[in-house]
């Protein structure tokens, strides 16, 4: 998979607490530093706060207390600067149904200002790597759930991130694509990227994560 030479920063959670309204704290006093070149697996039962933590890290919600920094950057104060270094696979597949996967990747690259003459071949290689077959030229709205998941993963890599946030990335993937995704994530990590992922696939988590964060 195409990887940007990383200019990585540590991702620092500093006393992060999160509750919804006046409800109980879902995350309570979470402090952790995720160094570049490492992968942190988020584990815990349903409702333990894995998705909440990933929502916090993807700036979709704010911490009730505490701060999350990417290097020196408060991610909630400067979300765009932070997101420029981040690729995300959300649990929900919110992709434009009337673009094909190559068109989606082109759009991402152009919007992020990372489009070059080499991008078409890079993107083709990326889609090959996640095992998205020739049906990739069809609109995403016609894809199966597995094909959509592959597109999400490819889109996260197409952002040329230093940090990857992945919420259940292996859901709906077939065996071959799962293997490709695991290999891709491990390669990304070894190249200096930071990975935070949640998955109920303990066997896959073991192969990717250097450490785990037990929640709940």
């Amino acid at each position, binding site marked *: 998979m195409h990887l940007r030479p990383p200019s990585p920063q540590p991702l620092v959670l500093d006393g992060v607490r999160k*509750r919804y309204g006046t409800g109980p704290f879902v995350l309570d006093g979470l402090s952790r530093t995720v160094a570049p070149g490492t992968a942190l697996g988020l584990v815990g039962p349903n409702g333990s706060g894995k998705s909440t933590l990933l929502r916090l890290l993807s700036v979709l919600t704010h911490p009730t207390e505490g701060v999350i920094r990417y290097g020196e950057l408060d991610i909630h104060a400067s979300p765009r600067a932070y997101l420029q270094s981040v690729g995300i696979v959300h649990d929900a597949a919110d992709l434009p149904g009337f*673009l*094909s996967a*190559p068109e989606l990747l082109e759009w991402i690259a152009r919007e992020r200002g990372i489009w070059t003459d080499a991008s078409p071949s890079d993107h083709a290689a990326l889609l090959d790597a996640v095992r998205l077959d020739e049906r990739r030229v069809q*609109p995403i709205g016609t894809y199966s759930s597995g094909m959509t998941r592959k597109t999400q993963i490819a889109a996260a890599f197409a952002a040329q991130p230093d940090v990857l946030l992945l919420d259940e990335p292996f859901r709906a993937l077939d065996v071959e694509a799962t293997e490709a995704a695991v290999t891709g994530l491990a390669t990304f990590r070894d190249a200096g990227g930071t990975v935070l992922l949640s998955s109920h696939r303990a066997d896959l988590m073991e192969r990717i994560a250097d450490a785990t964060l037990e929640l709940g």
Partner: protein
Amino acid sequence: MERDWSIALALMASPVPGLFSPARRVLRAVVWMSIVGLLVLLTLYASDGVEDRADFVWRFTIWVAFGLGIATPHILLPDPHLRLLQLANPTGQRLYRHQLERWIPIVLALGVPSIVVAARPPVDWALMAESVGATLAIGLLAFDAYARVGSRSWDWQDDRRGGWLKSFIKKAPLFRLFVPYGLVPGLALTLWIALAGSVLAIAGRVSTAQDWPLWPVLIGAFLLLGLRARRPFDADFYATNGFWAETFRAALGTEEEREPASFDAVYWVPAPLKPSVWALLVSLDRRLPLGRFILVGLVVVVGLAASGAPSGVQAAALALLILAKNAAVALTASASVLPRPWSLSVQSAVRWFGARVFVNLRWTLLIAVGALLVTWLGDPPGSLLIWIGADVGVSVIAAALVTLAAESQVVRQLA
């Protein structure tokens, strides 16, 4: 396989390309044109016989200000393409433009009645320009204020602001709020937009009466908004969308103000439709306090009748209330209320149509009471029975249109 990229590149001019098929774009245009056409017809009817057009326009503008003060976050937030936008990570300015592009058609539609009234012969160009300018200024003010409120909302929600109010309420629990503290900045904006809009409308009225131009005030307002639009927006965008997404998901963890409707409460619905009507009503109640909005609307309509407004205005207000009440059923076609594959697995399209009709009929009694008061206090055309019949008819038509739209999406998604 060779691919023609020109279309894709053209689509990429939009901040979020590829969401709509060409057919869907045409449908959206048709819907917008229908709304504008309906507004034109209603206004023509309501303003027939109105002698003081400036008076009509400034009163309407004030209602627009009050309406936008309440409705703006419900229309604008959260952005349905939030996660997709993260992938592209556009600049704050593009995020601002993206949201503004969703908002402007609504504001322009709200300007239609003023244009229609001012365009009645003899055309009053000054009134037209000033009323449209005032409506646009109020719309942009509401947009900018709500689009940037997120950080303050989070601060109130998470106890970083508003300590004075919280300690006051602790001492005087009688004044406790019935909404989460995070909504306090939004409530303040509701009042601010209504107030600022009213001032602008009154300024327009005075300027027309005195032959003073309102342009300097409007230009000043637009310049101010232009300056605000240039401020960094990315943090505001994510903070605001995050906050309202949680608010509308009812995930704020506060106790529900009132019990959700029980299954027994739908005793008036035919047995086969009861489960789906009940589920839709419970979901809708959590998504939108429609009963309260209808009550506010009824107060306005009855107030117009009692204050001796022209009969056309009374009729148009009642008709708008009926349309708005039944249009709310469109929310039942959203994925957050009724995921599409789920809707298909539960029951047939015909049954969903029936369920939506009954969801709409839930507030018909309230409309009937309002119509009774209006016909008693005022002199709108048509009898009470005709107005009730109109509500039932619109209920059925709205349910049919929403079901048609929802089912076509299901078919497209699962084809």
